[in-house]
C-alpha cells in the first residue's frame, strides 16, 4: 500500500475549495464563464479545477507504479525515452513500388528510424492492378503491390534486417506478409531476423475502417494463422496491431476508441487461446495502434489508461504470467480527421500538439501527419516538415528528459481513472453481448460510432465547437498549397509489369501452389507456409485472395447510417 493522500488532508482542502468557489461565484455573477460547457473533443465536461479530492484513493504503487512495472501506467519500459526515443515511423506509399522506395530512402536519409507502408486501395482489398475493380485507384492512396517482385523493389537498398517495417494491411495481411518474408529470404535475410508489424486487425475493419473481404469468422481464422506462425517462425514480428486509430477517425469518442480496441484485443487473445496457443507465447507480440486527437489531456489520459487496463486484462482475465504479455506497446498517428482543408498550414500546429500528447502518453512509435494530407498524399516537403516536428519534440523541447512528466497531476490522474472506468463499462457491455464478434453482428460499435460522429458534426455546425479556419477565423482568400500529383501513366506501367510476370512464371507451379493454399483453407490448416511458397512462385495477391474468397465467401457492407 502506498496511498498518496492521508485522509486527514481532505477536510482542509475541501474547506479551502469551498471558499475559493464562493469567491468564484461572486466573480461569475458579474461576468459569467466564457462557455456554458467546457468540453473535450469527445464531449466530456471538464471541471474548473482538480485537486486531491478528485483522486482521494490514489495508491502510488497500485495505480501508477514505476515505468516498466505493473500496471505500467507510467510506461512499459523501465527507461522509456531516457534509454531510446520512440521510433519515428512515417506512413508512406504512392504510385509504384519504385516511387515509394524513393520516398523511403528520402525519409530514412532525413532521420526516420522505422518504415511504414501505405498500400493502394486495390492492394488493401485484395485485387491486382489489372482487375476492373482497380480502375482509377492504382497507386492513388498508397503503393500498388501485385507480386513478390513489387515487394522486392519496395525495399531495395533498405536494411530490413536492421530497420523494422510496419505494414498497414488487413484482409490480405497473410499474403502481404508472406511476400515480405519471401522477398527478405530471396535477399538472404532469414525470417527469424525480421522485425516489424502487420496491422492484421480485421475486427476494427468491420467496425470502422471498412476494408473487408471475408466474413468475420474466417477473417479471424487467418489472423490466428499469422499469430501462430509468427510465434514459432518470426519471433521478432508483431503479428497484429490492434487498432483504435480508425475507430477514432470514423468518429468515436476517446473512450469508445479505448474500449473497442481493447475489446478487439480480448477477442483475438481468446481466439488464439482457443487455437491451443499459450497466452504467454503470443501475447508479447501483440501491439496496439492509437489515434492522437487534438484534445491534449484527454489523449494523454487515454494512453495511460490503455496501458493500465491491458495489464489488468492480461494478468487478471487471461492469467498471463510473462510481464511482456502485460505490456501494451503502441504506435500512434496524429488525427487525420482533425486536419482542415482550410488554411492548411494550421495543420502543422495541430499535428505538433497531437504528437506532443502521444509522446507525453508514452508511445513506442509515431507517425505525424503532413499539413497537406487532408488534400492528397503528402509532398516530399510536407512529409519532411512532419518528420521534423517529431525531431524538434524529441531533441529540442525537453519533454523527453523525464518519464511520464504529467504523472501525479490531479487532472490527468482523475481523467485516467475516469476513462478506465468508462471503458471497462463498455467492455462489460460487449462481454454481455457475447464478445466483440457478436457485438459487431449486432452493429453495436458501428452504431455507437456513427452517433458520436453525427453529434460532433452538429456541434461544429452550430458553432458550439470551434474549428479554426472552418467555422471561426475564416479567410476569404486562402494561400494555396502545392499538391502531389500521381502520374496517370502509372496504371499502364503497373499492369504491363504484372502481365509480364504472369507470362514468364511457371504456370504449373502456380496452379499447384494455389491448390495447396485452397486445400489448407478447406482442411482448416495454417496457410502461412503455403503462402510463402506460392508468392515465391509468383502467385499474385489477387489469385491468393480469390482462393480465400472462393472458400470463405465475401462480406458485404450492411450500409447502416
Amino acid at each position, binding site marked *: 500500500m502506498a496511498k498518496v493522500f492521508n485522509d486527514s488532508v481532505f477536510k482542509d482542502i475541501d474547506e479551502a475549495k469551498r471558499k475559493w468557489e464562493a469567491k468564484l461565484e461572486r466573480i461569475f455573477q458579474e461576468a459569467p464563464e466564457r462557455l456554458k460547457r467546457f468540453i473535450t473533443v469527445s464531449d466530456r465536461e471538464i471541471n474548473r479545477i482538480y485537486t486531491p479530492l478528485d483522486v482521494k484513493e490514489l495508491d502510488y504503487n497500485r495505480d501508477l507504479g514505476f515505468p516498466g512495472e505493473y500496471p505500467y501506467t507510467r510506461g512499459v519500459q523501465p527507461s522509456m525515452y531516457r534509454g531510446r526515443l520512440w521510433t519515428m515511423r512515417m506512413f508512406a506509399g504512392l504510385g509504384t513500388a519504385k516511387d515509394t522506395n524513393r520516398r523511403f530512402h528520402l525519409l530514412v536519409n532525413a532521420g526516420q528510424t522505422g518504415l511504414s507502408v501505405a498500400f493502394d*486501395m*486495390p492492394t*488493401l*482489398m485484395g*485485387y491486382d492492378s489489372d482487375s476492373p*475493380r*482497380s*480502375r*482509377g*485507384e492504382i497507386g*492513388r*492512396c498508397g503503393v500498388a503491390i501485385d507480386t513478390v517482385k513489387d515487394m522486392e523493389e519496395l525495399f531495395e537498398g533498405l536494411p530490413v534486417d536492421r530497420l523494422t517495417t510496419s505494414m498497414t494491411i488487413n484482409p490480405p495481411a497473410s499474403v502481404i506478409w508472406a511476400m515480405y518474408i519471401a522477398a527478405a529470404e530471396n535477399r538472404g535475410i532469414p525470417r527469424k531476423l525480421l522485425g516489424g508489424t502487420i496491422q492484421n486487425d480485421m475486427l476494427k*475493419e468491420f467496425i470502422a*475502417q*471498412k*476494408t473487408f473481404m471475408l466474413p468475420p469468422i474466417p477473417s479471424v481464422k487467418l489472423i490466428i494463422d499469422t499469430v501462430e506462425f509468427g510465434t514459432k517462425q518470426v519471433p521478432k514480428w508483431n503479428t497484429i496491431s490492434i487498432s483504435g486509430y480508425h475507430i477514432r*477517425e*470514423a*468518429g468515436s469518442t476517446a473512450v469508445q476508441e479505448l474500449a473497442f480496441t481493447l475489446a478487439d484485443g480480448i477477442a483475438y487473445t481468446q481466439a488464439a487461446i482457443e487455437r491451443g496457443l499459450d497466452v504467454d507465447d503470443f501475447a508479447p507480440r501483440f501491439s496496439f495502434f492509437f489515434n492522437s486527437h487534438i484534445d491534449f489531456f484527454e489523449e494523454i489520459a487515454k494512453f495511460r489508461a490503455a496501458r493500465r487496463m491491458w495489464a489488468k486484462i492480461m494478468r487478471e482475465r487471461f492469467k498471463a504470467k510473462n510481464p511482456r504479455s502485460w505490456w501494451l506497446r503502441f504506435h500512434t498517428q496524429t488525427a487525420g*480527421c482533425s486536419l*482542415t*482543408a*482550410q488554411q492548411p498550414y494550421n495543420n502543422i500546429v495541430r499535428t505538433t500538439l497531437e504528437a506532443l500528447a502521444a509522446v507525453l502518453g508514452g508511445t513506442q512509435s509515431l507517425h505525424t501527419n503532413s499539413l497537406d494530407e*487532408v*488534400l*492528397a*498524399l503528402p509532398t516530399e516537403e510536407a512529409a519532411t516538415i512532419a518528420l521534423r516536428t517529431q525531431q524538434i519534440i524529441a531533441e529540442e523541447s525537453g519533454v523527453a528528459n523525464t518519464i511520464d512528466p504529467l504523472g501525479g497531476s490531479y487532472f490527468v490522474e482523475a481523467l485516467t481513472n475516469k476513462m478506465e472506468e468508462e471503458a471497462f463499462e463498455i467492455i462489460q457491455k460487449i462481454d454481455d453481448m457475447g464478445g466483440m464478434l457478436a457485438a459487431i453482428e449486432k452493429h453495436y460499435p458501428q452504431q455507437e460510432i*456513427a452517433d458520436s*460522429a*453525427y453529434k460532433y*458534426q*452538429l456541434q*461544429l*455546425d452550430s458553432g458550439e465547437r470551434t*474549428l479554426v479556419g*472552418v*467555422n471561426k477565423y475564416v479567410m476569404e482568400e486562402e494561400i*494555396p498549397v502545392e*499538391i502531389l500529383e*500521381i502520374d496517370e501513366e502509372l496504371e499502364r506501367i503497373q499492369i504491363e509489369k504484372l502481365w509480364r510476370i504472369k507470362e514468364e512464371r511457371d504456370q504449373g507451379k502456380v496452379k499447384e501452389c494455389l491448390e495447396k493454399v485452397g486445400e489448407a483453407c478447406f482442411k482448416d490448416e495454417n496457410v502461412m507456409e503455403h503462402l510463402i511458397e506460392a508468392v515465391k512462385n509468383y502467385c499474385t495477391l489477387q489469385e491468393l485472395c480469390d482462393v480465400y474468397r472462393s472458400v470463405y465467401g465475401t462480406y*458485404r*457492407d*450492411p*450500409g*447502416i*447510417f
Partner: protein
Amino acid sequence: MSQRRIRVMVAKPGLDGHDRGARVIARAFRDAGFEVVYTGLHQTPEEIVEAAIQEDVDMIGLSSLAGAHRFLFPRVMELLKERGVEDIVVCGGGIIPDDDIPKLKAMGVKEIFTPGTPLHKIVEWVKENVKPREA
C-alpha cells in the same frame, strides 16, 4: 397532384472505405425530411446507376476520399447518360482537389462539397437544386 418527398441516394463508389462523411450526410438528409437510400461501401459505378434507377431517386450524392473520383465520377455520369436518366441530379463530396472540380462540373456533376462544408448548406443546396418528381 401530390408531391412526394425528395428522394436521394448517398453512394460510395470504388474501393475506398472512408464512410464517416457519407453516413453523416445520410443522417442529415434523413433529418431534413428526405427519403434516403445509402448504398453501403464498395459499389461499382454500374451498381450505383442500376440502384438509382431501381430506387427511382431524384439525386445521387457520390462520396470519395481516396483519389479515385477522377475515374469513378465521370463513369457514373457516362452510365446515367447511356441509361437515359440524366435528369437525376449528381453531386459529390470528399477529398477532391480544387483543380478537379471544374472538370467534374463540365461532365455534369452539379456541385462538389469539400471538407468543412456545414451540413445545413448541403441540405439547402439540395432543396434548391433537386425537385422531387411527381408521385
